[in-house]
């Protein structure tokens, strides 16, 4: 990993000596662990409305987070001061949370390790604004010319370049640059006083070279197509029925129904329906689910987690059996387990905790066509919106952006406004068919340590029975 000859100066956001002094100061009152997280970040958000660039917002952030722990108690402080006196004072103020003498000797910092796995060809800072605007206009054109019912198109282009430097009292000393780019198009279709929306887009842990491979026109048209389809769709019926959840963003069902409840944040506190369930069957035999933070240039990937340890590939569920949780350092102590490189945070303003990275259900051996053919009546959730879960009892919900009724094994009329609700402990047992068309899709996940990029994913799956909530009274 470490290249000897390279210039590491650019990563030294603070002097090594100062970092060591902060780590030492933090240990003065008997804590057994101290950590410094330093972040330097440049981001840009462009927004076009009706094809015209309306907003070009650039931002620059810098901040330092200090964390101190004693057994399972941890305290956190952050600032955007670079001033050595301010930083030492911050560590000292924070250390007052404990009142003992020095108990733990700090391990000297190792030689700075630079994460190199997710290489970027074209950094956002190297792209002229003019060229970014061209991308926006291309997507606008594709969406707005799709159909005359498309009355408004908004396109967002975001890029983000984050440098992190992480050091701790156990000698870890690592750095990496994380680049992310994303473009989203949102279309509004309107007719007869009714309005509906559709959106589509993609993103990556690559640089601007990503837009050469992204089907920009395709996503623009897709946003418009969904908006138009939903404009003329019926209200979704309500009731309990079989639901086929399509691949890619459909994976949000696993993310909500199960993923969050496998994060140590809730598991360690016995506040998850899956606490104490390791090694037991929590899903149907055909379900294998993975959280992989190592996928090259993945949206939710990184070289290191936000505690400075290598990201990993975790098999969460193997053939229906709970195999691994996602565990951060402090919760590992509570659970008597090893951390799994899962600690993440939005930025220095958040203390890190266990979070998902790129999470997906693995391929099965059916095809989508077979699944539809085998379903007499039900809902085909072709595109999902977002959702949420309460890990305390596993109850979850998510919304369907584009849905169709299934009748006699065939896709029938489009329906709008459907929400799906269920319980995570229950739903995983009800997955009875899994297709072989696994795809992942980009999302933003909001939880205890802020909003972070995370992939969701799955092949198309069928859930035997789930509560579908729409505006129309249920009738076949």
């Amino acid at each position, binding site marked *: 990993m470490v290249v000897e000859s390279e210039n590491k100066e650019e990563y030294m956001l603070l002097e090594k000596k100062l970092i060591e002094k902060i780590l030492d100061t933090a240990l003065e009152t008997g804590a057994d662990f101290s950590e410094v997280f330093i972040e330097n970040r440049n981001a840009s958000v462009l927004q076009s*409305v*009706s094809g*015209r*660039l*309306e*907003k*070009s*917002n*650039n*931002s*620059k*952030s*810098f*901040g330092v987070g200090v964390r101190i722990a004693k057994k*399972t*108690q*941890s*305290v*956190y*402080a*952050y600032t*955007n001061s670079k001033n050595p006196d301010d930083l030492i004072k*911050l560590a000292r103020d924070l250390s007052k*949370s404990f009142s003992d003498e020095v108990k733990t000797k700090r391990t000297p910092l190792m030689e700075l390790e630079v994460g190199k796995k997710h290489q970027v060809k074209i950094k956002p800072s190297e792209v002229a*604004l003019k060229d970014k*605007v061209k991308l926006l206009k291309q997507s606008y054109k594709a969406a707005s010319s799709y159909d005359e019912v498309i009355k*408004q198109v908004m396109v967002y282009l975001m890029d983000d370049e984050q440098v992190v430097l992480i050091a701790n009292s156990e000698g870890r000393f690592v750095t990496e640059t994380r680049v992310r780019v994303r473009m989203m198009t949102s279309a*509004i279709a309107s007719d007869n006083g*009714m*309005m509906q*929306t559709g959106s589509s887009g993609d993103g990556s842990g690559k640089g601007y070279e990503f837009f050469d491979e992204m089907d920009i026109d395709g996503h623009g048209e897709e946003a418009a197509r969904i908006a138009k389809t939903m404009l003329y769709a019926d209200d979704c019926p*309500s*009731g309990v029925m079989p639901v086929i959840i399509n691949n890619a963003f459909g994976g949000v069902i696993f993310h909500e129904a199960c993923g969050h409840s496998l994060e140590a944040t809730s598991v360690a506190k*016995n*506040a998850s329906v899956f606490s104490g369930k390791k090694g037991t069957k929590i899903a149907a035999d055909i379900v294998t689910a993975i959280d992989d933070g190592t996928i090259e240039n993945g949206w939710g990937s990184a070289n290191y987690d936000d505690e400075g340890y290598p990201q990993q590939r975790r098999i969460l569920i193997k053939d229906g059996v709970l195999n691994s949780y996602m565990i951060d350092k402090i919760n590992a102590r509570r659970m008597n387990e090893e951390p799994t490189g899962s600690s993440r945070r939005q930025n220095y*303003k958040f203390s890190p905790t266990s979070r998902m990275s790129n999470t997906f259900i693995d391929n099965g051996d059916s095809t989508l066509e077979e699944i539809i053919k085998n379903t007499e009546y039900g809902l085909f959730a072709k595109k999902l*919106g*977002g*959702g*949420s879960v*309460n890990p*305390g*009892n596993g*109850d979850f*919900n*998510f*919304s369907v952006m584009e849905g169709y009724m299934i009748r006699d094994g065939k896709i029938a009329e489009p329906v*709008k*406004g*459907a*929400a799906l*609700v*269920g*319980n995570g402990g229950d739903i995983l047992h009800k997955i009875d068919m899994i297709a072989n068309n696994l795809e992942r899709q980009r999302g933003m996940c909001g939880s205890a340590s802020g909003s972070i990029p995370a992939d969701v994913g799955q092949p198309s799956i069928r859930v035997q029975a789930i*509560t579908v*909530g*729409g*505006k129309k*009274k*249920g009738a076949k």
Partner: protein
Amino acid sequence: MNIEKLFNKASEKGITDIQIYLSDKTHLSIEIFEGDIDKYEISDTSSLIIRGIYNNKMGTFVTEVLDDEIIDEVIDTIIASAKEIDSLDDAIIYEGDKEYKKLDDIFNEDLEKLDVKKKIQTLKDMDKFLHEYDERMSVVETMYSENTNKVVLKNSKGLDLENVANSAYMGGSVIVKDETDQRVGFDVLISNDFNDFDIKKIAQGIADDALAALGAKPVPSDAYEIVFSNGALATLFSAFQNIFSADAVQKNTSLLKGKLDQKIGSDLVTIVDDPFMKKSARSRSFDDEGVATAYKELIKDGVLKTYLHNLVTAKKDGVSSTGNGFGGSVSAVNLKMESGSSKLDDMIQSMEEGIFITDVQGAHAGANAVSGDFSLQAMGYYVKNGKKVRPVALITVAGNFIDMLKDITMVGNDGKLSYYGVTTPSVKIKSMPVSGS
């Protein structure tokens, strides 16, 4: 950053007007888990938003690096942005109003000065109270969060404004368990006066709600009379705030387009934006553009009276800004649905067969602010002949926000400022589709 130097350099490079918005924040948050401090967080941060007009277009730069050495980068980036912006909107930097209302209760020095040990002890007392409250109490967390935000707004037209506000919330979250079920409870109380934190009252509310929900099951799918609790309505209402924005109206993304002075809700519905509301940390005497904020009725007795404007949307419509230019767009300060005269108990008793909904979930995805449609996960109680019969969970309630405003038949006298920053009473709705078993 030396602001004078920034303004001078900007002027030299051809920026005609420039404005800075400096925000200094301090923050404290504490969580107690099973009697011990589980989270303790302190911070002190500053950020600067710089907006500059070049060729009648506005460029924006946000920075947490406040050194003079980035001044050139800031100005060059603003100019580069302005050159690419081809929106037809005007760019306006404001010379200021004659008068700004003095708000005397948005900053409470005593809150900051109160010893942190007292704050921790109060949380620990609440933790103990909750643990001893009922033997089915399984997991308890209590939390306190305090924020102080000082804002300075200066521009090249001579405007120089300052605002300091602080606020805190205290609350808890619990998991209760019996042999067959597991339920959660959560609530916080928001205030900048520590004396308002009656922990027994907050804790009791959280515990009672969670315990009463044990054994909750869906109801058969059908249309039911609905009463939303004040908290449940807040979640729903906050998802549709943007419909009042003139920016959304002008961009054809608001359902309220063309509805000014029309009746869009029941007679019982009055919705205001009150930027001077007591004890709200959001209360402000000026918006992010430097315009004096004002109290206004958005809907009066069911009739839409005005949209919310910033400088740009106001100019387009030939009206004055309503002082709602926030975050580069338009939003309300303290949106409030006025309380009515009904008691919650009377509203529940008035239902022949209905659902009293105490909580809705998933509004960020399941509520579409453009179409007005929503379908959300809900929980609460099944009500028959005016009596709460049993707890209900894993149902959805669906509708359209505008239709719902028309179908409001009773409004509670229990308006409450929610976590989402909106104030809502409980309301009764004629009928809504519910999906369950």
